[in-house]
Structure formats: structure tokens, C-alpha cells
């Protein structure tokens, strides 16, 4: 049973529940106390000890049901005649036609015909004992270390390995021998063999579902992180959004902690005296001078024109999450001209906000000069020496006046001016890209073609205020 629990922990990790060794020890102790007799209580116990959020509880609950429906567990309880149909539906269905067709013809002829000596597996299949077959599959799964399965490409390998372990070679010989001696029996055995193959494949797929999720998810995320954002297919876009949300969550967890740091060694005399007035000015409680740190102030200006439309979705999503991390964010979107979108991003859900912004400002051809002029006219006064200004855009001005002079003024007023460009460095300066001219006035210019770079860039910006 210990083995089973360990496998369950691994399956739980695959389902996205982070199970630390300490938690698994707790769970073991709890289960040792509770026992396995009541499945409902067992589930509650595991949910209590392992899952630490509501979402985790949900996915762990599903994982539990999947895991304990698994035929693997059938190896231990011997009294499972009523369980067997749910556990092995596939094998059941595939076997029954063979059963009905072959049974009456071969049922009595079996012994008298003098068939050749059959291998253990063949005998098992011929006797149609479902429990025995399920047990054999479970044993083979253990022997083949099925819980090590990680990728869907390994399915074939594991099926073969399990069948080998169950003695498929002998079975093939048996079928060959039977074909000459007793063709109808041979047919029946062949059908049963097919059923067995299906059952094994089923078991392997289920194992993949249980144990493979973790790795394949990590692998997929890793690929996504490095994939260029401008060239994603629609299916990936959904996953990418989930990934960006995950990144945003991580940023929030890292940076939303209150920022207090004391400067030890510098006594704040005034406040110390005031604090200790009750004890006649004897300084029991000391107060130290605090270093004042700037609260993050961010102005984000995002290009949503046609040329960057595919990327701007992600930019907006990230700005949306910035609004959650940092209290003082003003955001703007532009293509032909510039509008403020702070309110939309603050109040609406990401999807709503994005579609509204795109409807208001999106998909035009970009005019950097005019948009910068709009910004200067309307909002230049919000840029203070404490502000970080982030510009997200490809700097493709459609050969219009870039108005780099305005950008210079913004750069001079602000603490930092960061430009994140979704184009590769190679493309900067070619065609209508004015990146080199803008770059001279920016504190940092970063290429931002994939999610990893985006995460780094935003993390650096927020970290500058820590």
C-alpha cells in the first residue's frame, strides 16, 4: 500500500498539486491512522494533507478518482466481481463477442480434442477470468515500471514491454500451434489476444494521463516560453495566455510584499523619544531611521497597431497584471493616436479589457509621432523623476515623423525609459523602423520576442523599485 501511495503522490504532482516531501510524510502518517477501508474518508484525508488551495483540491480530487479507479489497485482486493466491469470496460467489451461466438463451439470440444499444451497466458485468456487478467496486467505494469512513463511517444514502448513480460511470445507460439491442431480454438485465442492488447494499451494511456502530465506540461511550457510570440497558431495563443497569466502571478507573488527595510544603526531620535515618553524618556523601544523607497510608478505606452497586433494582446495582458502588482500604473494604447486605458484595464477582466481596447484604438496603422505628441500634450506632467516609462512597440513609423525629440523629453523627465521591442534585433533600423533613433534616448532597450524575454523585462522593471 505504501507503494501505491507513493505512486499517488507522483500522480498528484502530475496533476499540478505541489506535494513536498514533508506533506507526503504527513499524508502517510494520516493515512496510517485512517486506514484504507473507507474511500471517502481516505479522499478527504489526502485532500486535507496535500492540497493547499481550492484549485488544488479540485484537481487532486479528480486525480484521486482516476487513480483509484485504475485497475492497478485491483491487484489487492480479491473480492472484486462487481468492481471488475467498471475497471476493465475495454477488455470486457472486446472479449465478449469472441466469447459468445467461440464459447458454444469450443466449450466442450476443448478437452477432448487433445490440444497442445498451452502457456500460462493462453490458459488465462481461454478461461476468460477477468480478475486474473487484470491482476496479470497490474503485475506486468509494476514490473515494467509503468509509472515512469512521461511522454506520449513512450506508449508503444511500454505496451510492448508489458506484453513481453506477460509472455506474448509464448502466446504467439501457442496460437501457431493451435491453428494447425484446432482452428476454432486458435481463432478464439487470437480474438482474446486482441482484447488483451487493447486492455494493455488502455492501461498505458491511463498511466500516461496520471504520471505523464507533469513532464509534458513542463516541456510544453518550456517550448512556449521560447516560441516567438508573433508566430503562434491559435491553439497556442490560448496556452500562451495561460502562461502569461502564470508569469504575472509569479511576479505578483514576488513583488507585492510590503517593502520595508530598516536602516540599522541610524537612530531616529525624535520618534524614539516620543515612543518612550511613557517611561520617562528612558529609551526601551528604539526607532530606527527608515530608508524611503520610491513606490513603483509606471507609465506603460503600448502599440496596438496592425503590425504588432499579434503581440500586443500579450503586452496588454501583462500590463493588466502589472495593474494588479503595482498600485500606481497609468497605461496608454495607440495606433494612429493615443488614448488612456488605465480605467479599462483596472476594472475589467483581461478578455473584456483587451477587446475593448482593441476596438477603441487597435488595428490602425501606427503613427508614433502623433501618438507621442498626444502624450506630451495630455499627460507629460504625470511623468516624474520617480516614474518608469515603458514603451511596447516595434518603432515602425510608416515613414512618418518619429518625433524623437518628445521621447527625449520623456526620457529626461523620468527615472527610466524602457523600450520593449517585439522584433528581433536584426530588424531594427531596417525599412521604416526608427528603433536606432529612439534607442539613444532610452535607458534600456530590450528585444522582447518571446515570453521568457517579456518576463525578464517586466521583472527587472519591478525589481528596480525593491
Amino acid at each position, binding site marked *: 500500500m505504501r507503494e501505491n501511495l507513493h505512486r499517488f503522490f507522483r500522480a498528484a504532482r502530475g496533476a499540478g498539486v*505541489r506535494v*513536498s516531501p*514533508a*506533506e507526503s510524510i*504527513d499524508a502517510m*502518517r*494520516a493515512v496510517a*491512522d*485512517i486506514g484504507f477501508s473507507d474511500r*471517502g*474518508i481516505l479522499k*478527504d*484525508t489526502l*485532500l*486535507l*494533507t496535500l*492540497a*493547499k*488551495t*481550492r484549485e488544488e*483540491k479540485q484537481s487532486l480530487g479528480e486525480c484521486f478518482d482516476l487513480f483509484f479507479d485504475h485497475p492497478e489497485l485491483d491487484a489487492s482486493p480479491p473480492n472484486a466481481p462487481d468492481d471488475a466491469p467498471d475497471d476493465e470496460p475495454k477488455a470486457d467489451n472486446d472479449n465478449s463477442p469472441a466469447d459468445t461466438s467461440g464459447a458454444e463451439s469450443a466449450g466442450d470440444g476443448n478437452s477432448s480434442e487433445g490440444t497442445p499444451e498451452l502457456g500460462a497466458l493462453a490458459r488465462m485468456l481461454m478461461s476468460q477470468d477477468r480478475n486474473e487478467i487484470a491482476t496479470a496486467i497490474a503485475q506486468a505494469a509494476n514490473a515494467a515500471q509503468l509509472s515512469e512513463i512521461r511522454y506520449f511517444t513512450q506508449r508503444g514502448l511500454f505496451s510492448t514491454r508489458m506484453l513481453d513480460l506477460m509472455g506474448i511470445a509464448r502466446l504467439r507460439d501457442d496460437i501457431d500451434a493451435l491453428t494447425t491442431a484446432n482452428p476454432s480454438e486458435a481463432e478464439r485465442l487470437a480474438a482474446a489476444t486482441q482484447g488483451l492488447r487493447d486492455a494493455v494499451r488502455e492501461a498505458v494511456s491511463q498511466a500516461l494521463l496520471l504520471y505523464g502530465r507533469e513532464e509534458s506540461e513542463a516541456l510544453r511550457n518550456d517550448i512556449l516560453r521560447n516560441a516567438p510570440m508573433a508566430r503562434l497558431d491559435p491553439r497556442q495563443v490560448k496556452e500562451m495566455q495561460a502562461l502569461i497569466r502564470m508569469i504575472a502571478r509569479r511576479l505578483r*507573488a514576488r513583488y507585492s*510584499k*510590503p517593502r520595508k527595510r530598516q536602516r540599522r544603526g541610524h537612530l531616529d531620535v525624535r520618534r524614539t523619544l516620543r515612543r518612550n515618553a*511613557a*517611561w*520617562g524618556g*528612558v529609551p*526601551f*523601544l528604539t526607532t530606527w531611521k527608515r530608508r524611503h523607497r520610491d513606490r513603483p510608478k509606471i507609465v506603460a505606452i503600448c502599440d496596438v497597431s496592425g503590425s504588432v497586433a499579434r503581440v500586443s494582446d500579450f503586452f496588454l495582458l501583462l500590463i493588466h497584471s502589472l495593474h494588479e502588482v503595482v498600485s500606481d500604473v497609468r497605461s496608454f494604447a495607440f495606433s494612429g493616436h493615443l488614448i488612456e486605458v488605465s480605467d479599462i484595464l483596472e476594472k475589467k477582466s483581461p478578455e473584456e479589457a483587451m477587446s475593448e481596447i482593441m476596438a477603441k484604438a487597435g488595428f490602425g496603422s501606427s503613427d508614433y509621432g502623433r501618438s507621442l505628441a498626444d502624450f506630451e500634450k495630455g499627460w507629460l506632467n504625470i511623468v516624474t523623476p520617480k516614474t518608469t516609462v515603458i514603451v511596447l512597440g516595434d518603432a515602425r513609423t510608416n515613414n512618418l515623423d518619429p518625433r524623437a525629440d518628445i521621447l527625449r523629453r520623456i526620457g529626461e523627465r523620468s527615472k527610466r525609459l524602457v523600450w520593449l521591442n517585439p522584433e528581433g534585433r536584426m530588424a531594427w533600423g531596417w525599412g521604416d523602423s526608427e528603433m536606432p533613433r529612439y534607442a539613444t534616448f532610452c535607458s534600456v532597450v530590450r528585444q522582447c520576442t518571446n515570453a521568457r524575454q517579456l518576463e525578464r523585462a517586466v521583472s527587472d522593471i519591478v525589481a528596480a523599485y525593491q
Partner: protein
Amino acid sequence: MTDYRPAASIEAVESGLATAGYIANRQIATAVYLSERIEKPILVEGPAGVGKTELAKAIAAWRGVKLIRLQCYEGLDEAKALYEWKYAKQLLYTQILKDKLGEVLGHAETLPQALDKLHNFGDVFFSKEFVEPRPLLQALEQAKGCVLLIDEIDKSDAEFESLLLEILSDFQVTIPELGTISAIVPPTVILTSNAERDLGDALKRRCLHLHIGFPEQKLEERIVETRVPGISQALRKQIVGFINEVRTLDLKKLPSVSETIDWARVLVLLQSSELDHQTVKDTLNVLLKYEADIETTLPQVTTFVSKATKQNVYG
């Protein structure tokens, strides 16, 4: 109930809590049972008013031990949660010491001798007598055990969480001047949270995590039954049925168990024997706490009332 042995079974916990007037579902009972068995704190999450704090009170009442409650808020620190020095007494002590200094030092000839004598003189400035125990330390000092309720942990600062880690995992605290103080009897620790902010993994790891949601209809009826004794069965069913209907709406704050109980009490006071349109309309403000919510619900009241009463007939 002076002996403090862990409950024998989950059913025992369930009935024990019931004697204290708390109707627990099996999940809650399992959590309480396990926390006693493997000596782990329980972190309870869930919407406001589902009985998170009540659970701690019920355990204390059932066990017949003291309930020590620490209400968390922003800015709560060590001095208010764990211990503080009695500064005024310490001050007095130093003054007494100053007066007696001559006697203590005797007739030391030289400065090194005087210092030597001073070192040999027992130092009580930082000693147990001058410690003012705050809730966390009090909980460890209870000889008969206690229930320590750390309420709304999500309201406190992140630093405070780290302060709790030692007490949660080992039931001990370390005071730099005194050393480590361990619990005489490990207290039952209940932490509650409204999920206002995400708690740290370190804290979560040390706790059993219990999520209490809105109870099932049957359970809620039983809860109302124990909490509002004078209520008729028919009305009880209608109330719970109606509230379950309200919970399907998209409201700012859904009515929870405490609202159900309050509402049942109000209806009993108004001596209504069954739900009708007018009474519901008049008393809706007991149930819903936002003007906007009341406005959303008002047009639905008639259908909900008829549904609740019908269900009563057939159910």
C-alpha cells in the same frame, strides 16, 4: 472532560462537536480528528460566515478547554502577539538596583573587582518575571491544553506569518533573552483565512488545509435546527430552500450560514409560520448586505418563495 486524549474516531468528533452545538460535515470532522492525531494546525478557508471561527469555539467547548484568540490585523507584531517586556517594572527594577548598588558591590576596592561582583550578581532584568505573555505565549503555557484561534491570518503582514512558523511546526517559541519555550500540552491550533491574500507556502505546508463552503441543504437545516430551537420544521425547510435559491444568483456577497441563522431568528421573532412574499421582502436586508444585491434579488422573490414552498410539499 479534563483528560485531553485524541478522539477515538471521526464519528466521535462529529458527535462531540454536535454537543457543542456545531453540526460538522464529515470533512470537517475528519480534519479535526486528523489534527489531533498527527498534531497539526488546521488552516480553514472559506467565505465569510460559514462558521470558521465557530469551529474553534465549538472544539474548545467540546473539550472543555480555554479558547485563546488572536485576531490578526495589519501591523500586528511580535510585541502584541507573542510577548512583551514589562518595561515599567524593568525600569523600577533598575532604580531599585541603583539604590542597592552599594550593598551589592560591597566594598570592592577596584573597578575590576566591582565588575566581577556585578557579574556574579544574578541578572533578572531579562527574566520570566518581566515577560508579559501575549496570546501565542499564553497558549503554550496552558497546563491543560487549549484551543488557539488565529483569526483572519490573511489580514496580517507577510512577516507575521514567518513568526508563526516555529509555533505551528514545533509548538514552541524562542525568546532571544530566555531561550526556547515549548508547549506544556500542544494546543489545538486553528487558523482562519478569507483568502484576502495568498498565504505563504511555508505556512500552508505546516497545516492541514480545510475549505469550508456553503453546507448542503440537509446539513444547513440541521444547523438551523440546533441554532434556532423554536423554529418549525416546515419554515426551516422553506428558509433553507429559499437561501439556496438566492445563492444561485450572481451577488456581491452571497448569504452564508450565519445569515441563514440570523434570518431564521428574525422570522421566529416575527412569529411567521411560513414564508410569504411580503415578509421576505421586508426582511431581505437581514440576508443581503448590499443595496445592489437586494435590488437583484427583489424581482425573483416570488418565484423563489413558491419554489421553496413547493419543494416542501413534494420533498
